């Protein structure tokens, strides 16, 4: 049976291809008899015909070009602008990933400090939201709210403990993944907002230090900045970093949600002399990051390594990981209990976490998402009676007050976000962090692209983002009937029950 309104690409391409060839003598005739100017078209059609010949009979990589010639080019053209078209024209407000347009614009509005009220009603599908917040019939008055404060290292009676007055921290992003201006803007904004900035695993935090923020120095599995040549901990370098006044805490990264269980390859082209010296590696060959710390082969050795870093640095030391096997987590906690020393904080990064670059499968398929991991971790720590030995920080798409409050309810003491701050810096979710072509100058080292990122202006946005988040968090907390963010618990959540029915 004839198919109806389907474009017959084969017939269409034949017509177009024949048209191009026929065009040559036609325009030639016009050029000859009417006006020589028509020969501009003759020449153009000759070139098109040559191009077509090339597509159909010379090139091999593209099947469609070989089969249909020039007209298939349109497919590749439209395909190449597809993501932009979809983002600008065709995507619904709640459709884009990882962050929907409403999620992003909420961050933008907070960062620009403009009114973020909406009208008419929620556009989310509330009956199908898995987790909602319960408010109280008797909300707390604004004056009664207790300002947030959280002290790291108090459990161990550390001298150099660190107290934060905001429940929000800037999650690890290295200089390398981000360009220097982005790092400087984050640092300056963090200083102004009085929050901690994680350096990421980029080695010595040269640019993070420049604008004077309080820092968490992250030690990745390759221990950039504090490694010996063979990749073990260089104790001298670590004590040096720990003694920098700005470094308030150390974070040992076991794994991260976007690529749990994966090291990384830093190709030689990306290792500029500066990066090589900051990270302590050779600029003349590819660098392969290990997937775990050389010192950590099982739960006991990992716990011992944490203790060693604590003793060396005399600072609060945290551990970052994405939850994988639950029994391994249990073993790790047992090991901490056995040596009677816990990390000062634990970061649980959800599988939905972001990254500068990771294989797609690792982003899509590995790790436990934050809202599944967090209750498990919280429960386990409580069951073992050790919840008061450490602080818990959550991360994984917690960019807006709603999701942050949920995390606080599920046991987190504070929340980390990385991409929230990238959005505050002006990120438009172009998904090009790994190709040095970030159009907003954040995840790139190309000076032309970094040119548009004004450190002072963007630092202000970081500051406003934090302040407006805090304002919302306090307001929601009050509406939920609590004076202190620390009072939030799982009781404050409404979990959608499958099959909940009003007839039963």
């Amino acid at each position, binding site marked *: 049976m004839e198919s109806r309104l389907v474009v017959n690409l084969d017939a269409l391409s034949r017509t177009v291809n024949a048209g191009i060839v026929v065009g040559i003598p036609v325009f030639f005739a016009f*050029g000859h008899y009417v006006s*020589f100017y028509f020969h501009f078209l003759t*020449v153009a059609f000759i*070139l098109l015909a040559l191009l077509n010949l*090339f597509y159909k009979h010379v090139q091999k*990589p593209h099947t469609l070009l070989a089969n249909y010639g020039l007209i298939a*080019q349109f497919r590749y053209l439209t395909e190449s602008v597809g993501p932009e078209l979809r983002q600008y024209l065709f995507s619904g407000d709640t459709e884009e990933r990882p962050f929907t347009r409403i999620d992003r614009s909420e961050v933008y509005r907070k960062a620009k400090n403009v009114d973020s009220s909406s009208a008419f009603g929620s556009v989310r599908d509330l009956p199908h939201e898995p987790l909602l917040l319960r408010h109280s019939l008797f909300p707390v008055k604004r004056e009664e709210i207790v300002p947030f404060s959280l002290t790291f290292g108090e459990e161990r009676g550390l001298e150099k403990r660190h107290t934060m007055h905001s429940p929000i921290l800037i999650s690890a992003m290295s200089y390398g993944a981000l360009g220097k201006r982005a790092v400087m803007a984050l640092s300056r904004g963090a200083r102004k907002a009085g929050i901690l900035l994680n350096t990421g695993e980029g080695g010595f935090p040269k640019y993070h230090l420049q604008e004077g923020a309080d820092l968490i120095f992250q030690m990745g599995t390759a221990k950039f900045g504090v490694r010996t040549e063979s990749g073990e901990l260089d104790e001298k370098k670590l004590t040096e970093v720990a003694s920098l006044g700005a470094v308030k805490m150390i974070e040992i990264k076991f794994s991260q949600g976007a690529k749990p269980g994966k090291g990384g390859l830093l190709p030689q082209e990306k290792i500029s002399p500066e990066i090589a010296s900051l990270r302590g590696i050779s600029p003349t060959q590819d660098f392969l990051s290990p997937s775990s710390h050389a010192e950590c082969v099982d739960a006991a050795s990992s716990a011992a390594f944490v203790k060693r870093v604590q003793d060396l640095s005399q600072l609060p030391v945290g551990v970052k990981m994405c939850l994988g096997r639950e029994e391994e987590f249990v073993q790790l906690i047992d090991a901490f209990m056995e040596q009677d020393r816990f990390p000062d904080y634990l970061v649980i990064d959800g599988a939905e976490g972001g990254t500068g670059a990771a294989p797609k499968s690792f982003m899509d398929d590995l790790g436990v998402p934050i809202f599944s991991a967090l209750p498990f971790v919280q429960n386990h720590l409580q069951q073992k009676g050790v919840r008061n030995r450490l602080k818990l920080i959550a991360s994984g798409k917690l960019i807006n007050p709603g999701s942050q409050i949920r995390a606080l309810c599920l046991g987190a003491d504070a929340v980390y976000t990385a991409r929230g701050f990238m959005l505050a810096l002006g990120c438009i979710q172009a998904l090009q962090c790994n190709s040095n072509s970030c159009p907003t100058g954040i995840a790139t080292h190309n000076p032309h692209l970094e040119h548009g990122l004004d450190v002072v202006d963007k630092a202000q946005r970081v500051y406003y983002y934090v302040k407006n988040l805090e304002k919302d968090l306090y307001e929601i907390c009050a509406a939920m009937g609590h004076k202190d963010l620390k009072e939030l618990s799982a009781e404050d959540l409404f979990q959608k029950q499958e099959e909940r029915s009003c007839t039963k």
Partner: protein
Amino acid sequence: MHKVTGRLSKILSIILGTALSAVFFMAAWAKVSGNPGTKEVFTTLEMEPHGRIIIGIIEAAAAFLLVTHKYSATGALLGFAVMIGAFIAHGTKLGFVLSEADGGFLSLQMLIAASLCLGVMWLERHDLPIVGKLFDLEDERTSL
């Protein structure tokens, strides 16, 4: 091995590109400045003065692009297009032998310029507009 041929072809393309650039620049200058010979030619083609100036500008653009690093292939393509037009003009209206003194020398020049343009386009094929990327894929394929 690959590197040596790569370097050789780069040097060759720079030499060819520079030579072509000089030729196109002189031709463009003659046209734009209104050299009597070119005026005569374009009068025959009934393209005086606009056609002469347009072609002159295209040739100047080709001359300029040919000596850039990234767009020499585009310059060669433009030059090649102008040469096709020139062949049409000589083939249909002007004749290949302009005068006894010329003896077809100009036509020979055109033929050489067109071939050299093709040469540069081939040497710099990875930078050609639209199709350049295909050659990258092609290289990957043949390196399997």
